[in-house]
């Protein structure tokens, strides 16, 4: 874990760069929504006191197009973020795997880009199946056991994707679904090796919730965007740390 953290510390630009990209995309969404609302209000204002849920409900019911515009822009931003991350993750993995020349890193990234794309696609399918299975199993359990099970399966799936992508960088069959499947199985079969990464993934799943919660709880407050951005930075850090752990734990020859 600490070694992985050291690897990460060697490339602080990645942490800041990814975070800034997220903040910029989100700010773009905010700008679209601000402009849409201002146009719809046409000089009117809502004076809700501290009752912002009411104000937003009032606004949304009066101008349904605002909700549509917000949903569309948020959706586009999320898809853009997903695609961008899928594009650059190979670059990061190559950089984390070996401190080689920029040219070599770029060569590895370019060579593995289709494979990482393919593994990501396979993984969407597998994660969906795993999630359905987990939900189905959990529904037969008491909620106190069911939801942690879903959370665990989700976290395992996240790390499984990390492992599959790392192995593509390491030369595994890039397009075959077996690479994705074996990666997930390996995460399950080797809890000692991948447990820390799963724990980081589990912690990371809380971040989106925390960001949204902060956004909601700080409505109308001066700290609203800043607090959410700060937590997002922590989220990026946790994600990169998890990736570095996976890279360290999948070094060729690093078996249990």
């Amino acid at each position, binding site marked *: 874990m600490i070694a992985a953290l050291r690897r990460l510390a060697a490339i602080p630009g990645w942490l800041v760069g990814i975070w800034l990209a997220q903040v910029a*995309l989100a700010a773009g969404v*905010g700008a679209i*929504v601000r402009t849409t609302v201002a146009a719809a209000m046409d000089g009117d204002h809502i004076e809700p006191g501290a009752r912002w849920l009411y104000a937003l*409900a009032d606004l949304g*019911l009066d101008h349904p197009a605002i909700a549509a515009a917000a949903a569309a822009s948020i959706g586009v*931003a999320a898809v853009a973020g997903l695609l961008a991350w899928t594009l650059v993750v190979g670059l990061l993995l190559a950089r984390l795997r070996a401190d080689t020349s920029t040219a070599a890193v770029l060569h590895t990234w370019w060579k593995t880009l289709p494979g990482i794309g393919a593994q990501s696609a396979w993984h969407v399918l597998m994660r969906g199946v795993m999630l359905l299975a987990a939900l189905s199993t959990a529904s037969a359990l008491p909620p106190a056991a069911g939801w942690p099970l879903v959370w665990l399966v989700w976290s395992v799936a996240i790390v499984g994707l990390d492992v599959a992508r790392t192995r593509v960088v390491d030369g595994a069959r890039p397009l075959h679904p077996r690479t994705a499947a074996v990666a997930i199985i390996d995460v399950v079969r080797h809890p000692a090796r991948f447990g820390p990464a799963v724990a980081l993934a589990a912690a990371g799943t809380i971040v989106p919730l925390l960001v949204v919660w902060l*956004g909601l709880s700080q409505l109308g407050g001066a700290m609203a*965007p800043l607090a959410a951005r700060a937590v997002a930075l922590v989220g990026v850090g946790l994600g990169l740390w998890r990736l570095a752990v996976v890279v360290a734990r999948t070094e060729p020859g690093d078996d249990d």
Partner: protein
Amino acid sequence: MLGACRPTPEPPPPAEPPASPLRDVSVRGSIPDEARVTDWVISATLDAEAHRVDATARLRWTNRGPEPVAVLPMHLYLNGFRAADTAWMREGLHAGRTSGIDVDHAWGWVDVTDIVRHAAPDDEGTEVSWAERDEPSLMDIELGEAVAPGQTVDLELTFSTQLPAVFARTGFAGPFHLVGQWLPKPCVQYDDGTFADDPFTFHSEFFSDFGHWKVTLDVPAKFVVGATGTRIDGSITGDRRVETYEADMVHHFAWAAGPDLVVWDGEHEGIRIRQLLPPDAVADAPLHHDAVVAALDSMQARFGPYPWSTITVIHPPPGASAAGGMEYPTLFTTNRRRQLPPLLEALGFRDRFSGAFVTIHEFGHQYFQGMLASNEFAQPWLDEGMNSLSNALVYLDRYADETDPWVVQLAGQSFSILDGVRVQQRFAGDLEAVDQSAAGFDPTVGGYGATVYRKTTAIMLTLRALAGAEAFDAALKAYAHKWRFRHPTGDDLVDALVEGIGETIEVSEPAPDGSVVRLSVRDYLRTTLSQADELDYAVREIGRQTGASTAGHHRAQDGSLRDDGPPSLDPTEAFAVIVRHGGLSVPVEIEATFDDGTSERVTWDGVDRHVTLTWPDRTLRRVTIDPDGRLFLEMRRTNNTRWAADVEPDETVEEVAADLAQAVALGLLAGVGP
């Protein structure tokens, strides 16, 4: 579906049912004799396989009218479900009430097979004739010898009730049976001797007379029974359970029976609160118990004592949710608390609404319809609307330590019960008037709920805010007291409010010239209830303009022209243009805030289409219509405030919406990123 973690409590030990269906007279008060019109003795057997009830009912009906009655019109409510061309089904199908219809068990009916008139309790009686009308939810009984005013007639009706698979209130779902609108009932006789022989329609529910009921129910032994009134006898013989219930001063008797129902007995002020729940809903029992207690406390204080000794809450099992959310005397069905995914709970979602509100609402009908037995066909707002108002008041009373109690919280942000009333006004609309018959609402328009429930609530809350809570509450209390166990009309309610509040109320402080803006309570109620119109004020414009001036040349006393100086072209006075978009008008307060931080309120009577307000030698920062939010009836509040063009407000909905969108986008990006 996975729900949030909620432990399932053990039900309390079963309690003995109260001996009498009514509370002690010292608690409930007296009941006028003339309110008693019917006396029922019924024996009913449920065939749980055929979903049929075979029954014999002995009815003693009293002619309270001024004329002899030879033909007694009766409701056959369940026949509303008998065919696609009944009044109920025609409207219901237009309204799209087809969800959950089981085409193999869609129809329900009540089939009267024999009616005998008795002259003495034990005589064999005489067959009388009867005939369904073209609209089969009504029939007429030819009594033979007319019943004189003040006299009674004893009828024995034999009938069979076929229950439909439940898709609207009454019916069965698997072995569960909700036997709601199941028996023939005499129409209410007005004071002039005519009868309220209205058909059963999609939006109408009940209008019946009060009486005493003794009902014996024969059901499979494994079934649990919940019914109007109190159980006075019960036994099991072989595979059958026989229970007898007694109810008094109620206008209907409903019951439910099914296996695997858990009984949760509770008590409050000597009233037994009995819940019947499917096992997977037991965890919600305390929530519903608390909701009944909150409603009892609030409504007893506001509208007088609850007179009955029991209240039974039926929780329909899975598959029978269409039976949920319906009121019957001393019994109602409720809805389940929504199972929230932990994701929402993690976001700090809390609510005081899910499940609890339906229980409060259906309990409220014990007063608004159960006791204040208005004609729901003719004026549905009198029970559904006034009950909805009382539900909002229950929340205000239950959470009296909060000025505006929340019903939903998300991440610490609150949405209050009164916020809910306000935002819903945009759906209440201007297409249909509140005060009209249930059948007058076009089911395809779908405005019944918004108009009858929510616009009525807003009309009354607005009046309460303008007249003062104390005066309004006292007037409503007087209405409830006067019309208890009677059949009030809308005019009776308006009269009671006018009498209690006064013909006019002053809604402004005296202006410098001594004038006061007044509201005629009767006109307000008449127009808001009868007009299909909306209330909407808006700030059209604010700014500064060139004010009145005496510059220029004026004739002096000596006949010469006096030069009073050059014109001042600089704007010198602040102005605001307030417009009324809606067809309804109510006096409205307008708050002007000036650049020196001071503010001033003026009241506009709202009669004209617009008013221009001016403030000499002032500069406006902001103008807000109805700053205290007293006009609950206002349809749109997003146009109630304008800031001066050169002023940047501290916080705007644009910024808040943008911040929230940013946070959600950032959260999603965090989810799809590393």
